[in-house]
């Protein structure tokens, strides 16, 4: 472990309101994803891939991001399991339903891309790419602009465990640590132990992938990705360090893959994975912050929200064949 000091200092001091807010966002993300899964199972979409099991990591990340457009704010190079982060940042569940149904109203791709493939310029969320780990080559570019620009904006790159096998992961470690040009980059590995059907233990010598950052002189650490408070502190410590020192950090969070890889593998609930939402609700109940009824009310509120959203999406138009010709090239600008 190589975590910045602050991680421990602040431990166990989350305000009750923040805990409940985290819970609320976790429920929002989970229920949205579960609806997406039901939709794909019901033929209301072609493909699902998403983040159930990663809420304890993604929600705190969403809370800690400096949201906005341009290098003063954080850039996000996300992979396809980032709905908890993006929803926590303020994305609307309905927009995920739109992308799932490939409607013309899908704001992220107008029916072109799979669900959970965001692109939100106002929040510096660059297009999520289906190519595993290419985001690791792109992130240093936004961070380089941020470093030169000054301020506290950072570039956050997320990815899975299996994907670190692509050379692009090493590219990112190298480009973020050029002597004298260390970059404000957060590398966040969501380690769920699998790449589709292949166990990490089958292809990777060590389960501590973050340690690969060490020989580059990059600080790094590991956290229980099923514990939202641990994630909050670990992320906060890492992000504080990056914002201030303008140097990179690599954090690994060990998470669950609650519904398997994607709809291709059935998207069934996997019983023997830890469920961060169940665990957190038990904890909040134990701490006297959230009764079973109160928790259920949160679920109910989001269920109702999602139901209404879904009804709305059903009314919306599908893309037109002529749409394929839109946005191939951006129009020339005045220079």
């Amino acid at each position: 472990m190589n975590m910045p000091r602050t991680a421990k200092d602040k431990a166990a001091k989350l305000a009750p309101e923040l805990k409940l807010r985290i819970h609320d966002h976790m429920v929002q993300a989970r229920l949205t994803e579960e609806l997406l899964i039901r939709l794909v199972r019901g033929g209301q979409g072609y493909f699902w891939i998403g983040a159930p099991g990663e809420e304890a990591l993604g929600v705190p990340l969403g809370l800690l991001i400096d949201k906005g457009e341009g290098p003063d704010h954080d850039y996000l190079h996300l992979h396809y399991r980032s709905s908890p982060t993006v929803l926590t940042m303020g994305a609307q569940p309905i927009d995920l339903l739109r992308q799932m149904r490939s409607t013309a109203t899908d704001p992220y791709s107008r029916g072109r891309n799979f669900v959970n493939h965001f692109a939100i310029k106002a929040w510096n969320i660059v297009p999520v790419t289906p190519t595993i780990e290419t985001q690791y080559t792109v992130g240093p570019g936004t961070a380089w602009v941020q470093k030169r620009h000054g301020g506290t904006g950072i570039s956050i790159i997320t990815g899975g465990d299996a994907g670190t096998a692509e050379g692009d992961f090493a590219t990112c470690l190298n480009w973020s640590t050029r002597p004298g040009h260390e970059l404000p980059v957060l590398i966040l590995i969501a380690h769920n132990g699998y790449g589709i059907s292949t166990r990490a233990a089958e292809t990777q010598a060590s389960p501590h992938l973050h340690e690969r950052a060490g020989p580059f002189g990059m600080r790094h650490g590991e956290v229980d990705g099923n514990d939202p408070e641990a994630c909050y502190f670990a992320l906060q410590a890492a992000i504080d360090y990056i914002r201030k020192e303008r140097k990179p950090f690599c954090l690994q969070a060990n998470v669950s893959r609650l519904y398997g890889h994607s709809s291709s593998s059935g998207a069934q609930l996997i019983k023997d994975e830890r469920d961060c939402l169940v665990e957190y609700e038990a904890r909040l109940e134990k701490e006297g912050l959230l009764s079973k009824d109160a928790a259920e009310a949160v679920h109910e509120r989001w269920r109702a929200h999602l139901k209404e959203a879904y009804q709305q999406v059903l009314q919306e138009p599908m893309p037109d064949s002529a749409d394929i010709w839109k946005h191939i090239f951006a129009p020339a600008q005045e220079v």
Partner: protein
Amino acid sequence: MANLAQAIRLALHYGEENLGVTDIFGEDVGPPLGGVFTATQGLKTTWNTPLDERGIIGTALGIAYAGGRPVAEIQFCDYVFNCIDLLKLCGNAHWSSAGEYNVPMVVMTPVGSGIHGSIYHSHSFESIASHIPGWKIVMPSNPLDAYGLMLAALKEPNPVMYLAPKALLRVKGEELIPGEPADEKTLNQMINAPLGDRSGWAPNWPKVEDFTVPLGKAKVCREGQRATVISYGRTLPLCVTAADELRKEGLDFDVIDLRTLYPLDMATLQGSLRKTGRVLIVNEDTEVTNFGEHVLRRLIDTCFYDLEAAPVLLAGADVPGVGLAWELERASVPQQPDILAAMRKLASEKA
């Protein structure tokens, strides 16, 4: 009847038993999954690789150098584009070393649209693949050819790119693979992994036999006088169906399945074009610097003065991806009605 994925599986099994195949590997190629399209279920030399396409291609080259017989899978051709340099190395190793080394390896990868694969999982690869010297390239459109082309690939002392049309992987054949049980259910029970826990499962292989579709040999699927239609992969059966449809209107076509994209079976293509004087080439790769343009140019080189009407390429739209919504996919890559229309127009074009 075996479907195309099963045909590949049977061919690889034959290769393991009879042609010295030592390694069938790639992402999720080994147990438990046996490939995202089941093409490698139950095979004895499979293994799962790190998620690293460059490692896959490089390792295949190394295995071939060391006397192994590798079959490397790229899970979707959409993910091979960071390896073009390595594919070039495989293709030039023999030439660069002036014959010192040769590289018997097969790379197989699913290509094209047809499974709602969206921007990624719908790419074509033949245009770029055919531009890489030193490779032979095949693309079956039915299970029997899939079997016979794989056997040919496994006998070849040079690198072979085996492109599997995604849309047809689940499509059953009309002809039996030699040795295949006639009953489909029997076959499924013998070689398909069960759902759920597979740890105790082993396939019961039928005794499939040697059957090679020679590299460089196209297949004439339909014969006619009016025009020549050249295609392969997903669009080939659409062309055949269109030809059968148009025959009812009195318009008869040669429909040629290239099967091998490199080297081209120029003799068959020229023979047909000299007969019909008209040609339509159909594929679904994007249309700029498209492999069909190469076919067309080769035909022009030798048969220009035989042409009675402008030769036509029907290919994928020049857009950055195949969109997920059906209307987008439909408009991006040739579909049955597009092919029918193009054939009708070609047949009726004034000479």
